[in-house]
């Protein structure tokens, strides 16, 4: 695969350089240890979806936001599935298995390519970006921070993160294009929630 060519060599060199910065600043290391986890940024993005659900000031805006929440959640599910399928084909080992790594993360047991968490956050961000530019950009920013931290902490190679950052938005676009296939369901759910003053 491309991992054996010049791109793969750049990928490893870039990873080793960035991960080699670990230990130079206790503050940065501590910050990365906080941000790199499976919980902080993904849960923060999910909380953004919850706030988005309630934040539309008129009915039409709120409906658009709530459809955006459905697109984002569907994207997250499809992205997770796609990443699983791609990773078993690529079979790329985690960096700490092949290199001497400064690990600020636990020794993950799944494949490295592509990054699942980065793909999920970028997928959700792309779904939200379609209905709320500011919140979408903020989520893309969080995804970028997560991607940087994953490489810095020794959990992924740069290409893993870049692939995840591409897969999520591509799936979000596909979900948005094909949303009419499942369209009655979101609208029925929103109407039912409206009946109980929750949408």
């Amino acid at each position, binding site marked *: 695969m491309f991992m054996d060519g010049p791109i793969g060599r750049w990928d490893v060199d870039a990873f080793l350089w960035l991960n080699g910065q670990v230990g130079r600043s206790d503050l940065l290391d501590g910050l990365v240890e906080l941000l790199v986890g*499976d919980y902080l940024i993904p849960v923060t993005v999910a909380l953004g979806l919850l706030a988005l659900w*309630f*934040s539309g000031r008129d*009915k039409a805006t709120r409906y658009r936001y709530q459809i955006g929440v459905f697109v984002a959640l569907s994207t997250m599910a499809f992205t997770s599935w796609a990443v699983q399928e791609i990773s078993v084909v690529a079979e790329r080992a985690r960096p700490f298995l092949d290199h001497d790594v400064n690990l600020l993360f636990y020794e993950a047991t799944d494949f490295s390519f592509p990054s699942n968490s980065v793909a999920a956050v970028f997928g959700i961000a792309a779904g939200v970006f379609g209905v709320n530019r500011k919140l979408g950009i903020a989520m893309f920013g969080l995804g970028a921070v997560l991607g940087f931290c994953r490489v810095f902490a020794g959990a992924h190679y740069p290409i893993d993160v870049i692939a995840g950052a591409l897969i999520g938005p591509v799936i979000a676009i596909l979900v948005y294009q094909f949303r009419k296939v499942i369209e009655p369901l979101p609208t029925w759910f929103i109407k039912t929630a409206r009946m109980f003053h*929750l949408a």
Partner: protein
Amino acid sequence: MSPFVADYLLFAFWAAIGAIQIGASIGRFDGLLFIKHNLAARALGVALTLSAIAWFFLTDDRNINDTEGGLDANMQAMGVFAGAFVAVIVTVVTSSVVNAGLGRPGPEALKTPEGLNSGPEGGLDALRKVSYLTAVRRSLPPLWHGAPTSLVRFYSGDKEASSFE
């Protein structure tokens, strides 16, 4: 349930309460707010969310693999969904108590049929003027008495669907 899972669920619930306060304050749904002043309610929401994050991440090591007591992606998503679901219930109950007097019709209004029948708008818009409990009490009985006809009209788009176009 392991202590980690219990902590995660509490974190998701606590932070979700804050997220709902932030969203409801942006949407100006006073009936859902814990504090009547809009900006103060938003500040409370931010404080709740940040305090939940600080409590969860600064009190213990949370970088745990799902094979060693952590949660896989599916369980994480279910945990957030469960926390958000309970947070919505706690929010509507608490805000109904806090805002019990919000939008209550005065004695003059109760003397006229228009005042008595001045029901809330649909959906979340009702919560701009009244508490959640008041909105449900005003809106559900007419819907219930007219069922199933009213439900068929509601879902077929006669009354509501046009606003979604």
